[in-house]
Protein backbone atom coordinates (compact mmCIF):
# COMPACT_ATOMS: atom_id res chain seq x y z
CA UNK A 1 0.00 0.00 0.00
CA UNK A 2 1.30 3.47 -0.86
CA UNK A 3 0.59 6.77 0.81
CA UNK A 4 -0.64 5.69 4.19
CA UNK A 5 2.18 6.02 6.71
CA UNK A 6 0.03 5.21 9.71
CA UNK A 7 0.68 1.88 11.44
CA UNK A 8 -1.94 -0.63 10.38
CA UNK A 9 -3.17 -1.43 13.86
CA UNK A 10 -2.81 2.06 15.25
CA UNK A 11 -4.90 2.63 18.33
CA UNK A 12 -8.08 4.67 17.84
CA UNK A 13 -7.89 8.41 18.52
CA UNK A 14 -9.88 8.01 21.74
CA UNK A 15 -7.26 5.65 23.15
CA UNK A 16 -4.33 7.73 21.96
CA UNK A 17 -5.91 10.75 23.65
CA UNK A 18 -6.22 8.79 26.86
CA UNK A 19 -2.60 7.69 26.50
CA UNK A 20 -1.30 11.22 26.02
CA UNK A 21 -3.27 12.47 28.99
CA UNK A 22 -1.93 9.64 31.16
CA UNK A 23 1.67 10.36 30.17
CA UNK A 24 1.37 14.10 30.76
CA UNK A 25 -0.47 13.55 34.03
CA UNK A 26 2.29 11.27 35.32
CA UNK A 27 4.80 14.00 34.51
CA UNK A 28 2.69 16.51 36.43
CA UNK A 29 2.25 18.63 33.30
CA UNK A 30 -1.54 18.42 33.08
CA UNK A 31 -4.31 17.38 35.41
CA UNK A 32 -7.86 16.29 34.77
CA UNK A 33 -9.28 19.39 36.42
CA UNK A 34 -7.38 21.74 34.12
CA UNK A 35 -8.50 19.81 31.08
CA UNK A 36 -12.09 19.65 32.30
CA UNK A 37 -12.01 23.39 32.94
CA UNK A 38 -10.91 24.20 29.42
CA UNK A 39 -13.53 21.88 27.94
CA UNK A 40 -16.20 23.37 30.18
CA UNK A 41 -15.27 26.89 29.13
CA UNK A 42 -15.77 26.15 25.44
CA UNK A 43 -18.84 23.97 25.93
CA UNK A 44 -20.69 26.29 28.31
CA UNK A 45 -19.19 29.76 28.61
CA UNK A 46 -17.99 30.79 25.18
CA UNK A 47 -20.01 30.31 22.03
CA UNK A 48 -22.26 31.95 19.47
CA UNK A 49 -24.40 33.43 22.26
CA UNK A 50 -21.58 35.92 22.79
CA UNK A 51 -21.58 37.09 19.22
CA UNK A 52 -25.36 37.16 19.18
CA UNK A 53 -25.38 39.67 22.04
CA UNK A 54 -22.98 41.88 20.10
CA UNK A 55 -25.17 41.75 17.00
CA UNK A 56 -28.33 42.49 18.94
CA UNK A 57 -26.75 45.48 20.63
CA UNK A 58 -25.43 46.79 17.32
CA UNK A 59 -28.97 46.58 15.90
CA UNK A 60 -30.52 48.24 18.94
CA UNK A 61 -27.90 50.87 19.77
CA UNK A 62 -26.57 53.04 16.91
CA UNK A 63 -23.77 54.46 19.03
CA UNK A 64 -22.54 51.02 19.95
CA UNK A 65 -22.71 50.02 16.30
CA UNK A 66 -20.52 52.97 15.40
CA UNK A 67 -17.94 51.93 18.00
CA UNK A 68 -18.16 48.32 16.82
CA UNK A 69 -17.52 49.17 13.21
CA UNK A 70 -14.63 51.53 13.95
CA UNK A 71 -12.87 49.36 16.58
CA UNK A 72 -14.34 45.90 16.89
CA UNK A 73 -11.84 44.70 19.47
CA UNK A 74 -12.62 47.53 21.89
CA UNK A 75 -16.37 47.35 21.35
CA UNK A 76 -16.66 43.63 22.02
CA UNK A 77 -14.34 44.22 24.98
CA UNK A 78 -17.22 46.18 26.55
CA UNK A 79 -18.88 42.77 26.99
CA UNK A 80 -15.66 41.26 28.35
CA UNK A 81 -15.20 39.27 25.16
CA UNK A 82 -11.47 38.93 24.57
CA UNK A 83 -8.68 36.37 24.68
CA UNK A 84 -7.09 33.89 22.29
CA UNK A 85 -8.17 34.26 18.66
CA UNK A 86 -9.60 37.68 19.46
CA UNK A 87 -6.55 39.94 19.34
CA UNK A 88 -7.97 42.11 16.58
CA UNK A 89 -11.65 41.83 15.76
CA UNK A 90 -12.89 43.39 12.53
CA UNK A 91 -16.64 43.59 12.00
CA UNK A 92 -17.92 43.54 8.43
CA UNK A 93 -21.52 44.53 7.78
CA UNK A 94 -23.90 42.88 5.39
CA UNK A 95 -26.06 45.23 3.35
CA UNK A 96 -28.45 45.23 0.43
CA UNK A 97 -25.39 45.53 -1.81
CA UNK A 98 -22.88 43.17 -0.27
CA UNK A 99 -22.92 39.81 1.44
CA UNK A 100 -19.83 38.94 3.49
CA UNK A 101 -18.60 35.46 4.31
CA UNK A 102 -15.55 34.41 6.33
CA UNK A 103 -13.16 31.47 5.92
CA UNK A 104 -9.66 30.38 6.86
CA UNK A 105 -8.31 28.44 3.91
CA UNK A 106 -5.00 27.55 5.61
CA UNK A 107 -6.31 26.20 8.91
CA UNK A 108 -9.53 27.14 10.68
CA UNK A 109 -8.93 30.57 12.29
CA UNK A 110 -12.12 31.79 13.89
CA UNK A 111 -13.08 34.52 16.42
CA UNK A 112 -13.22 32.29 19.49
CA UNK A 113 -14.25 34.95 22.06
CA UNK A 114 -17.33 35.77 20.00
CA UNK A 115 -18.30 32.42 18.50
CA UNK A 116 -16.53 29.71 20.47
CA UNK A 117 -14.87 26.86 18.61
CA UNK A 118 -15.64 26.50 14.92
CA UNK A 119 -18.35 24.09 13.77
CA UNK A 120 -17.58 21.12 11.56
CA UNK A 121 -18.64 22.77 8.32
CA UNK A 122 -16.18 25.63 8.88
CA UNK A 123 -13.32 23.15 9.31
CA UNK A 124 -14.39 20.95 6.40
CA UNK A 125 -12.01 20.96 3.42
CA UNK A 126 -15.04 21.36 1.15
CA UNK A 127 -15.85 24.71 2.78
CA UNK A 128 -12.25 25.88 2.99
CA UNK A 129 -11.52 25.03 -0.64
CA UNK A 130 -14.73 26.11 -2.33
CA UNK A 131 -15.86 29.31 -0.62
CA UNK A 132 -13.01 31.30 -2.17
CA UNK A 133 -13.66 29.89 -5.65
CA UNK A 134 -17.41 29.45 -5.99
CA UNK A 135 -18.96 31.16 -2.96
CA UNK A 136 -22.41 31.67 -4.43
CA UNK A 137 -22.71 28.08 -5.51
CA UNK A 138 -21.44 26.75 -2.20
CA UNK A 139 -23.67 29.04 -0.13
CA UNK A 140 -26.61 27.86 -2.22
CA UNK A 141 -25.76 24.25 -1.40
CA UNK A 142 -25.56 25.25 2.25
CA UNK A 143 -29.06 26.70 2.08
CA UNK A 144 -28.39 30.39 1.48
CA UNK A 145 -29.39 31.79 -1.89
CA UNK A 146 -27.65 35.14 -2.08
CA UNK A 147 -29.75 37.56 -4.14
CA UNK A 148 -28.28 37.91 -7.62
CA UNK A 149 -27.95 41.69 -7.26
CA UNK A 150 -25.76 41.35 -4.17
CA UNK A 151 -22.00 41.22 -4.48
CA UNK A 152 -20.20 38.58 -2.46
CA UNK A 153 -17.08 39.40 -0.48
CA UNK A 154 -15.06 36.53 0.97
CA UNK A 155 -12.66 37.19 3.85
CA UNK A 156 -9.78 34.71 4.16
CA UNK A 157 -8.40 34.94 7.71
CA UNK A 158 -4.75 34.54 6.77
CA UNK A 159 -3.25 36.66 9.58
CA UNK A 160 -4.32 37.49 13.15
CA UNK A 161 -7.30 39.64 12.22
CA UNK A 162 -10.56 37.91 13.00
CA UNK A 163 -13.53 38.81 10.87
CA UNK A 164 -17.05 38.83 12.24
CA UNK A 165 -20.14 39.36 10.08
CA UNK A 166 -22.81 41.78 11.26
CA UNK A 167 -25.94 40.34 9.63
CA UNK A 168 -28.81 42.46 8.35
CA UNK A 169 -31.60 42.95 10.85
CA UNK A 170 -34.67 41.16 9.60
CA UNK A 171 -37.88 43.07 8.99
CA UNK A 172 -40.62 42.70 11.58
CA UNK A 173 -38.29 42.88 14.57
CA UNK A 174 -38.91 46.49 15.48
CA UNK A 175 -40.61 45.61 18.78
CA UNK A 176 -38.04 43.11 20.04
CA UNK A 177 -35.59 43.94 22.80
CA UNK A 178 -31.90 43.03 22.71
CA UNK A 179 -32.41 39.68 24.35
CA UNK A 180 -35.14 38.73 21.93
CA UNK A 181 -33.05 39.92 19.01
CA UNK A 182 -30.04 37.94 20.20
CA UNK A 183 -32.13 34.79 20.25
CA UNK A 184 -32.63 35.11 16.49
CA UNK A 185 -28.96 35.37 15.63
CA UNK A 186 -27.27 32.12 14.61
CA UNK A 187 -23.62 31.18 14.44
CA UNK A 188 -24.03 30.58 10.73
CA UNK A 189 -25.29 34.15 10.19
CA UNK A 190 -22.25 35.61 11.99
CA UNK A 191 -19.87 33.77 9.65
CA UNK A 192 -21.95 34.62 6.60
CA UNK A 193 -23.34 31.27 5.48
CA UNK A 194 -26.87 32.18 6.58
CA UNK A 195 -28.99 35.25 7.18
CA UNK A 196 -31.02 36.07 10.29
CA UNK A 197 -34.69 35.33 10.06
CA UNK A 198 -37.41 36.81 12.22
Amino acid sequence: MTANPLPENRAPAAIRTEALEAILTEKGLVNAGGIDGLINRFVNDVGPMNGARVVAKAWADPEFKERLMSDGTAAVGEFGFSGPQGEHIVVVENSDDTHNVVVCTLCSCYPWPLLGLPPNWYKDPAYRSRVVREPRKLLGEMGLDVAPEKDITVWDSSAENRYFVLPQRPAGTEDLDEEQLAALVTREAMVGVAVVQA
Partner: protein
Amino acid sequence: MDGLHDMGGKQGWGTVAVDPDEPVFATEWEGRAFAMGAMSGGLSGTNLDAFRHALERLHPMEYLIDGYYGRWLACAELLLVDSGIIPAGAVEARAQKLLGNDVDEPTEAVENKPQYERGGGGSLRQIDAAPGFAVGDKVRARDMHVSGHTRMPSYIRGRDGVVSAIRPAAVLPDATAHFTGEDAQHVYTVDFDSTTLWGPDAEPATLKIDLFESYMEAR
Protein backbone atom coordinates in the same frame (compact mmCIF):
# COMPACT_ATOMS: atom_id res chain seq x y z
CA MET B 1 4.81 25.05 2.29
CA ASP B 2 2.74 23.66 -0.55
CA GLY B 3 0.88 21.19 1.60
CA LEU B 4 -2.56 19.66 1.81
CA HIS B 5 -3.58 22.33 4.35
CA ASP B 6 -3.43 25.01 1.66
CA MET B 7 -6.95 24.33 0.51
CA GLY B 8 -8.17 27.55 -1.08
CA GLY B 9 -9.50 26.84 -4.56
CA LYS B 10 -8.67 23.16 -4.53
CA GLN B 11 -11.26 20.80 -5.99
CA GLY B 12 -12.62 17.36 -5.26
CA TRP B 13 -13.65 17.75 -1.62
CA GLY B 14 -17.34 17.34 -2.21
CA THR B 15 -20.13 19.14 -0.45
CA VAL B 16 -20.63 20.37 3.08
CA ALA B 17 -23.69 20.20 5.30
CA VAL B 18 -24.57 22.50 8.20
CA ASP B 19 -25.86 20.93 11.39
CA PRO B 20 -26.96 23.91 13.52
CA ASP B 21 -27.31 21.68 16.57
CA GLU B 22 -23.98 19.90 16.53
CA PRO B 23 -22.27 19.64 19.91
CA VAL B 24 -19.01 21.49 20.51
CA PHE B 25 -17.28 18.14 20.86
CA ALA B 26 -18.82 15.07 19.24
CA THR B 27 -17.04 12.74 21.65
CA GLU B 28 -15.28 12.89 25.00
CA TRP B 29 -11.85 12.42 23.41
CA GLU B 30 -12.31 15.38 21.07
CA GLY B 31 -12.65 17.73 24.03
CA ARG B 32 -9.61 16.30 25.80
CA ALA B 33 -7.56 16.36 22.57
CA PHE B 34 -8.56 20.01 22.11
CA ALA B 35 -7.51 20.89 25.65
CA MET B 36 -4.13 19.19 25.36
CA GLY B 37 -3.61 20.74 21.94
CA ALA B 38 -4.32 24.17 23.41
CA MET B 39 -1.84 23.50 26.22
CA SER B 40 0.84 21.93 24.03
CA GLY B 41 2.37 25.23 22.93
CA GLY B 42 3.11 26.20 26.51
CA LEU B 43 4.22 22.72 27.57
CA SER B 44 6.60 22.41 24.64
CA GLY B 45 7.91 25.95 24.84
CA THR B 46 6.78 26.70 21.32
CA ASN B 47 4.06 29.04 20.04
CA LEU B 48 0.87 29.40 18.03
CA ASP B 49 2.67 29.61 14.69
CA ALA B 50 4.68 26.49 15.47
CA PHE B 51 1.39 24.76 16.28
CA ARG B 52 -0.07 25.81 12.93
CA HIS B 53 3.08 24.60 11.20
CA ALA B 54 2.79 21.31 13.04
CA LEU B 55 -0.64 20.91 11.43
CA GLU B 56 1.04 21.36 8.06
CA ARG B 57 3.77 18.87 8.89
CA LEU B 58 1.31 16.02 9.48
CA HIS B 59 1.17 13.49 6.70
CA PRO B 60 -2.02 14.13 4.68
CA MET B 61 -3.48 10.85 5.88
CA GLU B 62 -2.87 11.86 9.50
CA TYR B 63 -4.34 15.27 8.74
CA LEU B 64 -7.57 13.74 7.49
CA ILE B 65 -8.20 10.46 9.19
CA ASP B 66 -9.49 11.54 12.59
CA GLY B 67 -10.83 14.96 11.66
CA TYR B 68 -10.05 18.31 13.22
CA TYR B 69 -9.38 17.17 16.78
CA GLY B 70 -7.43 14.20 15.50
CA ARG B 71 -5.11 16.81 14.00
CA TRP B 72 -4.90 18.64 17.32
CA LEU B 73 -3.98 15.44 19.09
CA ALA B 74 -1.30 14.64 16.54
CA CYS B 75 0.10 18.19 16.71
CA ALA B 76 0.25 18.15 20.49
CA GLU B 77 2.24 14.92 20.30
CA LEU B 78 4.51 16.29 17.53
CA LEU B 79 5.41 19.47 19.45
CA LEU B 80 5.94 17.57 22.71
CA VAL B 81 8.22 15.07 20.97
CA ASP B 82 10.12 17.83 19.14
CA SER B 83 10.79 19.57 22.45
CA GLY B 84 11.86 16.39 24.20
CA ILE B 85 8.98 16.44 26.67
CA ILE B 86 7.89 12.95 25.68
CA PRO B 87 9.76 10.35 23.62
CA ALA B 88 8.76 9.50 20.06
CA GLY B 89 6.38 6.58 20.01
CA ALA B 90 5.34 7.01 23.64
CA VAL B 91 1.71 7.79 22.87
CA GLU B 92 1.14 4.80 20.60
CA ALA B 93 2.98 2.47 23.00
CA ARG B 94 0.86 3.62 25.94
CA ALA B 95 -2.28 3.34 23.82
CA GLN B 96 -1.40 -0.24 22.92
CA LYS B 97 -0.90 -0.96 26.61
CA LEU B 98 -4.31 0.52 27.34
CA LEU B 99 -5.68 -1.86 24.72
CA GLY B 100 -4.14 -4.75 26.64
CA ASN B 101 -1.21 -5.36 24.31
CA ASP B 102 2.19 -6.13 25.75
CA VAL B 103 4.55 -3.53 24.33
CA ASP B 104 7.67 -1.78 25.57
CA GLU B 105 7.33 1.92 26.22
CA PRO B 106 10.23 4.08 25.00
CA THR B 107 12.63 5.48 27.56
CA GLU B 108 12.55 9.10 28.63
CA ALA B 109 13.27 11.89 26.18
CA VAL B 110 15.82 14.66 26.73
CA GLU B 111 14.21 18.06 27.02
CA ASN B 112 15.05 20.18 24.01
CA LYS B 113 12.79 23.22 23.99
CA PRO B 114 13.51 25.85 21.34
CA GLN B 115 15.46 28.86 22.60
CA TYR B 116 14.11 32.13 21.33
CA GLU B 117 12.93 35.52 22.52
CA ARG B 118 9.49 37.05 22.19
CA GLY B 119 8.91 40.78 22.00
CA GLY B 120 5.64 40.58 23.91
CA GLY B 121 2.49 38.55 24.32
CA GLY B 122 0.30 37.59 21.40
CA SER B 123 1.11 38.33 17.79
CA LEU B 124 0.45 42.07 17.38
CA ARG B 125 3.35 44.50 17.64
CA GLN B 126 4.01 48.23 17.43
CA ILE B 127 6.69 48.92 14.85
CA ASP B 128 8.48 52.13 13.96
CA ALA B 129 8.78 51.68 10.23
CA ALA B 130 6.17 53.45 8.14
CA PRO B 131 3.91 51.18 6.09
CA GLY B 132 5.36 50.51 2.66
CA PHE B 133 1.94 50.43 1.03
CA ALA B 134 -1.14 52.63 1.24
CA VAL B 135 -4.83 51.92 0.75
CA GLY B 136 -5.50 51.92 -2.99
CA ASP B 137 -2.03 50.71 -3.99
CA LYS B 138 -1.87 48.09 -6.69
CA VAL B 139 0.22 45.18 -5.51
CA ARG B 140 1.16 41.68 -6.51
CA ALA B 141 1.38 38.71 -4.17
CA ARG B 142 4.99 37.62 -4.60
CA ASP B 143 5.80 34.38 -6.42
CA MET B 144 7.21 32.85 -3.25
CA HIS B 145 8.28 29.27 -2.72
CA VAL B 146 8.53 28.77 1.02
CA SER B 147 9.26 25.24 2.20
CA GLY B 148 8.53 26.03 5.83
CA HIS B 149 5.58 27.82 7.40
CA THR B 150 3.95 30.71 5.62
CA ARG B 151 0.57 32.40 5.71
CA MET B 152 0.58 33.17 2.01
CA PRO B 153 -1.79 30.71 0.37
CA SER B 154 -0.82 29.41 -3.05
CA TYR B 155 -4.00 30.52 -4.79
CA ILE B 156 -2.98 34.20 -4.79
CA ARG B 157 0.69 33.61 -5.62
CA GLY B 158 1.73 35.91 -8.44
CA ARG B 159 -1.74 37.47 -8.70
CA ASP B 160 -2.57 41.20 -8.70
CA GLY B 161 -4.72 42.93 -6.11
CA VAL B 162 -5.38 46.26 -4.42
CA VAL B 163 -4.71 47.24 -0.81
CA SER B 164 -7.98 47.98 0.96
CA ALA B 165 -6.90 48.31 4.62
CA ILE B 166 -3.85 48.57 6.84
CA ARG B 167 -4.13 46.27 9.85
CA PRO B 168 -2.07 46.17 13.06
CA ALA B 169 1.53 45.09 12.56
CA ALA B 170 2.27 41.55 13.68
CA VAL B 171 5.07 39.03 14.01
CA LEU B 172 5.83 37.15 10.80
CA PRO B 173 4.68 33.53 11.18
CA ASP B 174 7.32 32.41 8.65
CA ALA B 175 9.89 33.44 11.29
CA THR B 176 8.20 32.70 14.60
CA ALA B 177 7.11 29.20 13.60
CA HIS B 178 10.78 28.35 13.14
CA PHE B 179 12.00 30.30 16.22
CA THR B 180 14.26 32.50 14.11
CA GLY B 181 13.00 35.83 15.42
CA GLU B 182 9.85 37.91 15.12
CA ASP B 183 10.40 40.04 12.01
CA ALA B 184 7.26 42.06 12.87
CA GLN B 185 5.74 43.68 9.80
CA HIS B 186 2.84 45.73 8.63
CA VAL B 187 -0.17 43.69 7.58
CA TYR B 188 -2.60 44.69 4.85
CA THR B 189 -5.93 43.49 3.60
CA VAL B 190 -5.60 43.05 -0.14
CA ASP B 191 -8.56 42.65 -2.48
CA PHE B 192 -8.44 40.25 -5.41
CA ASP B 193 -11.07 39.96 -8.09
CA SER B 194 -12.18 36.37 -8.54
CA THR B 195 -11.46 36.46 -12.28
CA THR B 196 -7.83 37.34 -11.51
CA LEU B 197 -7.58 34.19 -9.43
CA TRP B 198 -9.73 31.68 -11.28
CA GLY B 199 -9.92 32.93 -14.85
CA PRO B 200 -12.50 34.83 -16.88
CA ASP B 201 -15.28 32.31 -16.25
CA ALA B 202 -15.04 32.59 -12.47
CA GLU B 203 -18.06 33.36 -10.34
CA PRO B 204 -17.97 37.12 -9.65
CA ALA B 205 -16.71 37.84 -6.14
CA THR B 206 -14.14 39.85 -4.21
CA LEU B 207 -11.61 37.95 -2.17
CA LYS B 208 -10.06 39.82 0.75
CA ILE B 209 -6.99 38.36 2.32
CA ASP B 210 -4.47 39.60 4.89
CA LEU B 211 -0.88 39.78 3.69
CA PHE B 212 2.36 40.58 5.47
CA GLU B 213 4.40 43.31 3.83
CA SER B 214 7.14 40.93 2.71
CA TYR B 215 4.57 38.85 0.81
CA MET B 216 3.80 41.82 -1.44
CA GLU B 217 5.46 43.79 -4.23
CA ALA B 218 4.37 47.00 -5.91
CA ARG B 219 2.74 46.84 -9.34
